[in-house]
Protein backbone atom coordinates (compact mmCIF):
# COMPACT_ATOMS: atom_id res chain seq x y z
CA UNK A 1 0.00 0.00 0.00
CA UNK A 2 1.18 3.46 -0.87
CA UNK A 3 2.16 5.20 2.30
CA UNK A 4 0.10 7.98 3.78
CA UNK A 5 -3.23 6.88 2.34
CA UNK A 6 -6.09 8.65 4.06
CA UNK A 7 -9.22 6.74 5.03
CA UNK A 8 -12.25 8.66 6.31
CA UNK A 9 -15.08 6.95 8.14
CA UNK A 10 -18.54 8.43 7.72
CA UNK A 11 -22.11 7.30 8.21
CA UNK A 12 -24.79 9.86 7.38
CA UNK A 13 -26.88 8.74 10.33
CA UNK A 14 -25.43 9.09 13.81
CA UNK A 15 -24.80 6.14 16.09
CA UNK A 16 -24.00 3.53 13.45
CA UNK A 17 -20.59 2.70 14.89
CA UNK A 18 -18.11 4.95 13.08
CA UNK A 19 -15.94 5.51 16.14
CA UNK A 20 -15.94 1.87 17.16
CA UNK A 21 -14.91 0.82 13.64
CA UNK A 22 -12.33 3.64 13.41
CA UNK A 23 -10.75 2.55 16.67
CA UNK A 24 -10.60 -1.09 15.54
CA UNK A 25 -8.96 -0.08 12.26
CA UNK A 26 -6.43 2.10 14.06
CA UNK A 27 -5.41 -0.90 16.13
CA UNK A 28 -5.43 -3.37 13.23
CA UNK A 29 -3.39 -1.10 10.95
CA UNK A 30 -1.18 0.08 13.80
CA UNK A 31 -1.86 3.50 12.40
CA UNK A 32 0.58 6.11 13.65
CA UNK A 33 -1.50 9.04 12.54
CA UNK A 34 -5.20 9.43 13.15
CA UNK A 35 -7.75 12.14 13.75
CA UNK A 36 -11.22 12.78 15.07
CA UNK A 37 -13.05 15.18 12.79
CA UNK A 38 -16.37 14.88 14.60
CA UNK A 39 -15.64 18.19 16.28
CA UNK A 40 -19.25 18.65 17.40
CA UNK A 41 -19.21 15.47 19.48
CA UNK A 42 -15.70 13.99 19.53
CA UNK A 43 -15.45 10.49 20.99
CA UNK A 44 -12.37 8.85 19.49
CA UNK A 45 -10.23 9.84 22.48
CA UNK A 46 -12.55 7.77 24.67
CA UNK A 47 -12.39 4.72 22.40
CA UNK A 48 -8.65 4.94 21.75
CA UNK A 49 -7.43 5.68 25.22
CA UNK A 50 -4.38 7.89 25.22
CA UNK A 51 -1.47 7.48 27.58
CA UNK A 52 -0.56 11.13 27.97
CA UNK A 53 -2.18 14.53 28.14
CA UNK A 54 -2.56 16.43 24.93
CA UNK A 55 -1.18 19.80 23.91
CA UNK A 56 -4.15 22.11 23.87
CA UNK A 57 -4.69 25.28 21.94
CA UNK A 58 -7.61 27.65 21.69
CA UNK A 59 -9.11 27.67 18.26
CA UNK A 60 -10.24 30.90 16.74
CA UNK A 61 -13.05 30.82 14.25
CA UNK A 62 -14.17 33.80 12.26
CA UNK A 63 -13.94 37.08 14.11
CA UNK A 64 -17.20 38.18 15.63
CA UNK A 65 -18.72 41.60 15.90
CA UNK A 66 -18.47 43.58 19.11
CA UNK A 67 -20.36 46.81 19.78
CA UNK A 68 -18.76 49.35 22.03
CA UNK A 69 -21.65 50.65 24.17
CA UNK A 70 -19.98 54.00 24.72
CA UNK A 71 -19.84 54.78 21.03
CA UNK A 72 -23.19 53.29 20.02
CA UNK A 73 -25.69 55.99 19.10
CA UNK A 74 -28.67 53.66 18.91
CA UNK A 75 -29.38 54.36 15.24
CA UNK A 76 -30.62 50.80 14.61
CA UNK A 77 -28.75 50.33 11.31
CA UNK A 78 -26.82 47.24 12.47
CA UNK A 79 -30.05 45.64 13.62
CA UNK A 80 -31.69 46.38 10.28
CA UNK A 81 -28.87 44.97 8.20
CA UNK A 82 -27.95 41.88 10.20
CA UNK A 83 -29.30 38.81 8.45
CA UNK A 84 -28.54 36.43 11.28
CA UNK A 85 -30.64 37.98 14.10
CA UNK A 86 -27.38 38.53 15.94
CA UNK A 87 -28.06 42.10 17.05
CA UNK A 88 -30.42 43.01 19.84
CA UNK A 89 -31.36 46.14 21.71
CA UNK A 90 -30.33 46.53 25.30
CA UNK A 91 -31.69 49.73 26.79
CA UNK A 92 -30.63 52.56 24.51
CA UNK A 93 -27.82 50.71 22.78
CA UNK A 94 -27.33 47.62 20.68
CA UNK A 95 -25.36 44.47 21.48
CA UNK A 96 -24.20 41.41 19.57
CA UNK A 97 -25.23 37.85 20.37
CA UNK A 98 -21.96 35.99 19.75
CA UNK A 99 -23.75 32.67 19.25
CA UNK A 100 -25.74 33.97 16.30
CA UNK A 101 -23.03 36.19 14.84
CA UNK A 102 -21.65 34.73 11.61
CA UNK A 103 -18.73 37.16 11.35
CA UNK A 104 -19.78 38.73 8.04
CA UNK A 105 -18.79 42.25 9.27
CA UNK A 106 -21.65 44.03 7.52
CA UNK A 107 -22.52 45.78 10.80
CA UNK A 108 -18.94 47.02 11.18
CA UNK A 109 -19.09 48.45 7.67
CA UNK A 110 -22.46 50.07 8.08
CA UNK A 111 -22.10 51.60 11.53
CA UNK A 112 -22.02 55.41 11.21
CA UNK A 113 -20.52 55.83 14.68
CA UNK A 114 -17.62 53.37 14.24
CA UNK A 115 -18.86 51.60 17.32
CA UNK A 116 -18.40 48.11 15.92
CA UNK A 117 -15.21 46.11 15.56
CA UNK A 118 -14.50 42.50 14.67
CA UNK A 119 -12.71 40.67 17.46
CA UNK A 120 -11.08 37.30 17.89
CA UNK A 121 -13.50 34.69 19.07
CA UNK A 122 -12.61 31.33 20.57
CA UNK A 123 -14.87 28.80 18.92
CA UNK A 124 -13.24 25.64 20.18
CA UNK A 125 -10.18 23.87 21.39
CA UNK A 126 -7.76 21.81 19.32
CA UNK A 127 -5.75 18.99 20.89
CA UNK A 128 -2.71 16.99 19.82
CA UNK A 129 -1.72 13.74 21.49
CA UNK A 130 1.78 12.41 20.90
CA UNK A 131 3.11 9.04 21.83
CA UNK A 132 4.11 6.29 19.44
CA UNK A 133 1.43 7.80 17.27
CA UNK A 134 0.04 11.22 16.58
CA UNK A 135 -3.63 11.85 17.29
CA UNK A 136 -5.28 15.10 16.34
CA UNK A 137 -8.68 16.08 17.65
CA UNK A 138 -10.74 19.09 18.64
CA UNK A 139 -13.89 20.13 20.35
CA UNK A 140 -16.18 22.84 19.07
CA UNK A 141 -17.50 25.20 21.70
CA UNK A 142 -21.21 24.71 22.06
CA UNK A 143 -23.44 26.80 19.86
CA UNK A 144 -20.64 27.48 17.40
CA UNK A 145 -20.76 27.42 13.66
CA UNK A 146 -17.66 27.27 11.44
CA UNK A 147 -17.08 23.63 12.25
CA UNK A 148 -15.61 23.24 8.76
CA UNK A 149 -12.68 25.44 9.63
CA UNK A 150 -11.97 23.49 12.82
CA UNK A 151 -12.16 20.21 10.91
CA UNK A 152 -9.62 21.55 8.41
CA UNK A 153 -7.42 22.65 11.31
CA UNK A 154 -7.55 19.15 12.85
CA UNK A 155 -6.42 17.61 9.57
CA UNK A 156 -3.72 20.19 9.03
CA UNK A 157 -2.42 19.67 12.57
CA UNK A 158 -2.23 15.94 11.92
CA UNK A 159 -0.40 16.30 8.60
CA UNK A 160 2.07 18.77 10.04
CA UNK A 161 2.90 16.65 13.07
CA UNK A 162 2.85 13.10 11.85
CA UNK A 163 5.99 11.19 10.99
CA UNK A 164 6.92 11.52 7.34
CA UNK A 165 6.88 7.77 6.92
CA UNK A 166 3.44 7.25 8.46
CA UNK A 167 1.35 4.43 7.15
CA UNK A 168 -2.40 4.60 6.72
CA UNK A 169 -4.08 7.66 8.21
CA UNK A 170 -7.50 7.08 9.74
CA UNK A 171 -10.01 9.85 10.22
CA UNK A 172 -13.19 9.45 12.27
CA UNK A 173 -15.85 11.69 10.71
CA UNK A 174 -19.12 13.16 11.89
CA UNK A 175 -22.75 12.41 11.13
CA UNK A 176 -24.69 14.53 8.65
CA UNK A 177 -23.84 15.90 5.22
CA UNK A 178 -23.05 19.53 5.97
CA UNK A 179 -20.01 21.70 6.38
CA UNK A 180 -17.92 19.59 8.79
CA UNK A 181 -18.47 16.46 6.70
CA UNK A 182 -17.58 18.26 3.48
CA UNK A 183 -14.44 19.67 5.09
CA UNK A 184 -13.38 16.21 6.24
CA UNK A 185 -13.87 14.62 2.79
CA UNK A 186 -11.60 17.08 1.05
CA UNK A 187 -8.26 15.48 0.16
CA UNK A 188 -8.93 11.93 1.45
CA UNK A 189 -8.32 8.85 -0.67
CA UNK A 190 -11.23 6.79 0.47
CA UNK A 191 -14.47 7.12 2.39
CA UNK A 192 -15.84 4.11 4.26
CA UNK A 193 -19.50 4.45 5.10
CA UNK A 194 -20.66 2.51 8.14
CA UNK A 195 -24.36 1.96 7.56
CA UNK A 196 -27.07 0.75 9.85
CA UNK A 197 -29.85 -1.50 8.58
CA UNK A 198 -32.89 0.57 9.46
CA UNK A 199 -35.22 2.73 7.43
CA UNK A 200 -33.46 5.85 8.74
CA UNK A 201 -30.05 4.26 8.25
CA UNK A 202 -30.45 3.40 4.58
CA UNK A 203 -32.03 6.78 3.85
CA UNK A 204 -29.17 8.67 5.45
CA UNK A 205 -26.58 6.40 3.82
CA UNK A 206 -27.89 7.37 0.39
CA UNK A 207 -27.54 11.06 1.19
CA UNK A 208 -23.99 10.70 2.45
CA UNK A 209 -23.07 8.63 -0.61
CA UNK A 210 -24.46 11.41 -2.80
CA UNK A 211 -22.46 13.99 -0.86
CA UNK A 212 -19.25 11.93 -1.09
CA UNK A 213 -19.64 11.28 -4.81
CA UNK A 214 -19.37 14.97 -5.51
CA UNK A 215 -15.74 14.76 -4.39
CA UNK A 216 -14.65 11.93 -6.63
CA UNK A 217 -13.21 9.92 -3.72
CA UNK A 218 -13.39 6.14 -3.68
CA UNK A 219 -16.30 4.95 -1.56
CA UNK A 220 -16.97 1.65 0.18
CA UNK A 221 -19.83 0.58 2.44
CA UNK A 222 -20.13 -1.86 5.31
CA UNK A 223 -23.14 -2.61 7.50
CA UNK A 224 -22.96 -2.63 11.28
CA UNK A 225 -25.49 -4.45 13.48
CA UNK A 226 -26.55 -6.28 10.31
CA UNK A 227 -28.38 -9.00 12.16
CA UNK A 228 -30.90 -6.54 13.59
CA UNK A 229 -32.52 -6.41 10.15
CA UNK A 230 -31.54 -8.86 7.42
CA UNK A 231 -34.03 -7.44 4.94
CA UNK A 232 -32.64 -3.93 5.02
CA UNK A 233 -29.06 -5.24 5.09
CA UNK A 234 -29.83 -6.95 1.79
CA UNK A 235 -31.40 -3.72 0.45
CA UNK A 236 -28.20 -1.88 1.28
CA UNK A 237 -26.09 -4.53 -0.42
CA UNK A 238 -28.33 -4.42 -3.51
CA UNK A 239 -28.18 -0.64 -3.59
CA UNK A 240 -24.38 -0.70 -3.49
CA UNK A 241 -24.24 -3.18 -6.35
CA UNK A 242 -26.64 -1.05 -8.35
CA UNK A 243 -24.53 2.10 -7.95
CA UNK A 244 -21.21 0.30 -8.27
CA UNK A 245 -19.93 0.86 -4.77
CA UNK A 246 -17.98 -1.98 -3.12
CA UNK A 247 -19.93 -3.59 -0.29
CA UNK A 248 -17.17 -4.80 1.94
CA UNK A 249 -18.69 -6.54 4.89
CA UNK A 250 -21.18 -7.00 7.68
CA UNK A 251 -20.64 -6.66 11.42
CA UNK A 252 -23.13 -8.22 13.83
CA UNK A 253 -24.86 -6.47 16.74
CA UNK A 254 -22.72 -7.29 19.74
CA UNK A 255 -23.34 -6.38 23.37
CA UNK A 256 -19.70 -7.14 24.04
CA UNK A 257 -18.79 -4.16 21.87
CA UNK A 258 -20.41 -1.78 24.35
CA UNK A 259 -18.62 -3.51 27.19
CA UNK A 260 -15.25 -3.22 25.42
CA UNK A 261 -15.72 0.46 24.60
CA UNK A 262 -16.88 1.34 28.07
CA UNK A 263 -13.67 -0.23 29.38
CA UNK A 264 -11.59 1.83 26.92
CA UNK A 265 -10.75 -1.17 24.75
CA UNK A 266 -11.29 -1.86 21.10
CA UNK A 267 -13.56 -4.68 19.92
CA UNK A 268 -10.49 -6.42 18.55
CA UNK A 269 -8.94 -6.51 22.01
CA UNK A 270 -11.52 -8.96 23.30
CA UNK A 271 -12.93 -12.15 21.88
CA UNK A 272 -16.22 -11.12 20.33
CA UNK A 273 -18.18 -11.56 17.09
CA UNK A 274 -18.01 -7.90 16.08
CA UNK A 275 -14.22 -7.96 16.51
CA UNK A 276 -13.89 -10.95 14.18
CA UNK A 277 -16.16 -9.34 11.59
CA UNK A 278 -14.38 -5.99 11.65
CA UNK A 279 -11.08 -7.74 10.88
CA UNK A 280 -12.60 -9.07 7.66
CA UNK A 281 -13.91 -5.64 6.73
CA UNK A 282 -10.43 -4.28 7.35
CA UNK A 283 -8.85 -6.87 5.08
CA UNK A 284 -11.38 -6.09 2.36
CA UNK A 285 -10.73 -2.40 2.50
CA UNK A 286 -6.98 -2.97 2.34
CA UNK A 287 -7.44 -4.84 -0.92
CA UNK A 288 -9.18 -1.80 -2.39
CA UNK A 289 -6.61 0.63 -0.97
CA UNK A 290 -3.79 -1.42 -2.47
CA UNK A 291 -5.16 -0.63 -5.90
CA UNK A 292 -5.36 3.13 -5.37
Amino acid at each position, binding site marked *: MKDKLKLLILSGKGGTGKTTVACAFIRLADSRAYADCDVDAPNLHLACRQTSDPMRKDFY*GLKKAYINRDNCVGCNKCYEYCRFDAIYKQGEVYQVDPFSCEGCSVCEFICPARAISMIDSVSGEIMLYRSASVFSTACLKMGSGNSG*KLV*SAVKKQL*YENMEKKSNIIIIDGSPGIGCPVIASISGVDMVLIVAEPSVSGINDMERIIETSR*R*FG*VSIAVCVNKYDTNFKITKEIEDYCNKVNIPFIGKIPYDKRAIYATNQGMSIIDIDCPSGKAVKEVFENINRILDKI
Partner: protein
Amino acid sequence: MIIAIPVDENNEKTLTCISYGRAPYYLIFDTDSEKVEYVQNTAAESAGGAGIKAAQILVNNKVNILLTERCGQNAADVLIAGKIKIYKALHVQAMTNLKAFLKGELEELRDIHPGYHGHKD
Protein backbone atom coordinates in the same frame (compact mmCIF):
# COMPACT_ATOMS: atom_id res chain seq x y z
CA MET B 1 6.80 32.51 -17.22
CA ILE B 2 5.93 32.24 -13.56
CA ILE B 3 5.47 28.82 -11.99
CA ALA B 4 3.88 28.16 -8.57
CA ILE B 5 4.05 25.04 -6.39
CA PRO B 6 2.25 24.60 -3.04
CA VAL B 7 4.87 23.65 -0.41
CA ASP B 8 5.16 22.68 3.23
CA GLU B 9 8.15 24.84 4.11
CA ASN B 10 9.89 27.90 2.71
CA ASN B 11 13.22 26.29 1.83
CA GLU B 12 14.74 24.42 -1.11
CA LYS B 13 14.42 20.96 0.41
CA THR B 14 10.70 21.31 0.96
CA LEU B 15 8.20 18.66 -0.08
CA THR B 16 5.31 19.56 -2.31
CA CYS B 17 2.26 20.18 -0.14
CA ILE B 18 -0.54 17.75 -0.73
CA SER B 19 -3.18 20.40 -0.14
CA TYR B 20 -3.07 23.19 -2.65
CA GLY B 21 -5.60 25.52 -0.98
CA ARG B 22 -4.25 25.22 2.54
CA ALA B 23 -0.55 24.91 1.78
CA PRO B 24 1.41 27.16 4.13
CA TYR B 25 3.51 28.61 1.27
CA TYR B 26 3.82 28.75 -2.48
CA LEU B 27 7.17 28.38 -4.13
CA ILE B 28 7.24 30.86 -7.02
CA PHE B 29 9.80 30.43 -9.79
CA ASP B 30 10.33 33.02 -12.52
CA THR B 31 11.89 31.43 -15.61
CA ASP B 32 13.19 34.80 -16.83
CA SER B 33 15.07 35.81 -13.72
CA GLU B 34 15.54 32.19 -12.54
CA LYS B 35 14.75 33.36 -9.01
CA VAL B 36 12.91 31.32 -6.40
CA GLU B 37 10.61 33.08 -3.94
CA TYR B 38 8.33 31.83 -1.21
CA VAL B 39 4.95 33.49 -0.75
CA GLN B 40 2.90 32.89 2.38
CA ASN B 41 -0.54 31.51 1.63
CA THR B 42 -2.93 33.66 3.63
CA ALA B 43 -5.83 31.57 2.33
CA ALA B 44 -4.75 28.66 4.53
CA GLU B 45 -6.43 30.16 7.58
CA SER B 46 -9.76 30.65 5.86
CA ALA B 47 -12.87 29.14 7.31
CA GLY B 48 -14.07 28.17 3.87
CA GLY B 49 -13.30 28.82 0.24
CA ALA B 50 -9.58 28.46 0.84
CA GLY B 51 -8.97 27.13 -2.65
CA ILE B 52 -10.75 30.11 -4.16
CA LYS B 53 -8.80 32.61 -2.14
CA ALA B 54 -5.56 30.76 -2.88
CA ALA B 55 -6.36 30.89 -6.58
CA GLN B 56 -6.97 34.62 -6.25
CA ILE B 57 -3.54 34.99 -4.65
CA LEU B 58 -1.92 33.18 -7.57
CA VAL B 59 -3.83 35.26 -10.12
CA ASN B 60 -2.76 38.43 -8.31
CA ASN B 61 0.87 37.22 -8.40
CA LYS B 62 0.62 36.80 -12.17
CA VAL B 63 1.32 33.08 -12.04
CA ASN B 64 1.13 31.25 -15.40
CA ILE B 65 1.64 27.63 -14.33
CA LEU B 66 0.60 25.73 -11.20
CA LEU B 67 2.10 22.35 -10.29
CA THR B 68 -0.13 20.56 -7.80
CA GLU B 69 -1.09 17.03 -6.76
CA ARG B 70 -4.77 17.82 -6.57
CA CYS B 71 -7.17 20.66 -7.07
CA GLY B 72 -10.83 21.30 -6.36
CA GLN B 73 -13.40 22.43 -8.89
CA ASN B 74 -14.01 25.88 -7.45
CA ALA B 75 -10.30 26.70 -7.32
CA ALA B 76 -9.86 25.30 -10.84
CA ASP B 77 -12.62 27.61 -12.09
CA VAL B 78 -10.71 30.62 -10.83
CA LEU B 79 -7.37 29.36 -12.15
CA ILE B 80 -8.72 28.55 -15.58
CA ALA B 81 -10.51 31.90 -15.81
CA GLY B 82 -7.18 33.47 -14.85
CA LYS B 83 -5.48 31.53 -17.67
CA ILE B 84 -3.30 29.53 -15.28
CA LYS B 85 -2.46 26.06 -16.55
CA ILE B 86 -2.49 23.25 -14.02
CA TYR B 87 -0.04 20.34 -14.14
CA LYS B 88 -0.02 17.22 -12.02
CA ALA B 89 2.79 17.20 -9.48
CA LEU B 90 4.09 14.15 -7.64
CA HIS B 91 4.48 13.83 -3.91
CA VAL B 92 8.21 14.58 -3.95
CA GLN B 93 10.38 17.57 -3.23
CA ALA B 94 9.08 20.71 -4.90
CA MET B 95 12.36 21.30 -6.75
CA THR B 96 12.10 17.81 -8.26
CA ASN B 97 8.66 18.66 -9.60
CA LEU B 98 9.95 21.97 -10.94
CA LYS B 99 12.82 20.30 -12.78
CA ALA B 100 10.48 17.67 -14.17
CA PHE B 101 8.11 20.34 -15.47
CA LEU B 102 10.91 22.31 -17.13
CA LYS B 103 11.98 19.12 -18.90
CA GLY B 104 8.42 18.67 -20.14
CA GLU B 105 7.87 15.52 -18.08
CA LEU B 106 4.69 16.53 -16.23
CA GLU B 107 1.19 16.07 -17.56
CA GLU B 108 -1.73 18.42 -17.30
CA LEU B 109 -3.96 17.72 -14.30
CA ARG B 110 -7.06 15.94 -15.56
CA ASP B 111 -8.87 14.78 -12.45
CA ILE B 112 -10.19 17.93 -10.88
CA HIS B 113 -12.29 16.91 -7.92
CA PRO B 114 -15.60 18.65 -7.33
CA GLY B 115 -15.56 21.21 -4.57
CA TYR B 116 -18.67 23.05 -3.61
CA HIS B 117 -20.89 22.93 -6.60
CA GLY B 118 -20.07 25.21 -9.47
CA HIS B 119 -20.21 28.94 -9.65
CA LYS B 120 -22.51 31.49 -11.11
CA ASP B 121 -21.26 33.55 -13.99
